[in-house]
């Protein structure tokens, strides 16, 4: 009887351990989501951000992208394929216009249509304040493709979905 009780306790402990391992281990979906958290962190900007912090953020931002990333948007001029250096450079220039900037990502839906390819649809909200004190707010639906390269999920394609078509 006593032995049976120990067996039951041991089974419960092992079960809880397995649950904890499965629950807390970083799954592929969590790794993909983490990339969006990092993207949000690197794009966002505080008014007291110094040049060194800015340079480090832009370098880190580039590391989230593959060798090239295709941007597809209704505005033809902006559509095209960009290298990670170009992305860092453009992002730095765009960020310079805003003393305060915040990128929020909502409603992330992650699927894996192919091996080592993740497709993510999300709502991106960019909120900023210009130097003139004007508040700017842009919200868009994005569809992103991330490819796993050397163990890292890197952005390879970003499409801005046209929710409202003029």
């Amino acid at each position: 009887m006593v032995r049976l009780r120990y067996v039951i306790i041991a089974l419960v402990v092992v079960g809880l351990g397995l649950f904890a391992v499965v629950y807390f281990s970083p799954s592929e979906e969590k790794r993909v989501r983490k990339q969006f958290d990092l993207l949000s962190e690197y794009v966002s900007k505080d008014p007291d951000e110094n040049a060194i912090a800015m340079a480090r953020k832009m370098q880190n931002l580039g590391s989230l992208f593959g060798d090239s990333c295709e941007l597809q948007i209704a505005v033809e001029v902006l559509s095209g394929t960009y290298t990670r250096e170009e992305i860092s450079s453009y992002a730095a220039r765009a960020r310079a216009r805003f003393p305060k900037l915040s990128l929020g990502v909502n409603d992330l839906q992650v699927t894996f249509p192919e091996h080592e390819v993740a497709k993510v649809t999300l709502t991106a909200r960019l909120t900023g304040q210009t130097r003139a004190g004007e508040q700017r707010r842009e919200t868009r639906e994005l569809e992103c493709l991330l490819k796993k390269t050397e163990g890292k999920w890197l952005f390879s394609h970003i499409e801005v979905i046209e929710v409202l078509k003029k």
Partner: protein
Amino acid sequence: MTSHSRIRRFFFPSLTPRFLIRVCFVAVAAYLFFGHVLIPIRIQGTSMEPTYRNGGMNFCWKLRYLFSKPERHDVVAVRFAGNRVMLLKRVVALEGEQVEFRNGKLFVDGGEIPEPYVLNPCNWNLPPREVETGCVYVVGDNRSMPIENHYFGQTSVKRIVGVPLW
């Protein structure tokens, strides 16, 4: 039972199984109702002013179009990737109709549509375009900004989540 003890029991109920079941039931019902039927929303932005003010609170009634379709002049909530972020816009044209703006006036199929909810002066010009099948044309009530700065256009009926409660 004195009124004093009744009040005491109301604010400090004893944790009986019956009470816990009741709490669970209320919590689940509230989650389902306010998460899927009547979603609380906070209005951000000025595109629907003066009808809906920036910073206002409201609820999105999701069952409004369960047995009907959106009609002209309805204010609707349009979703992006999910229900966390939505646009509040007014339906001005339905599928198959030709919509255009001439000197700030709305024309549908060549006829002028009165818009008493537009109080700010507007000088928009938009060439005629036909609303595709399964879509409606939505615009905000605040037309005081240049047409390029206002996010409006044709959207799929499937993206319409519901209507504001008031």
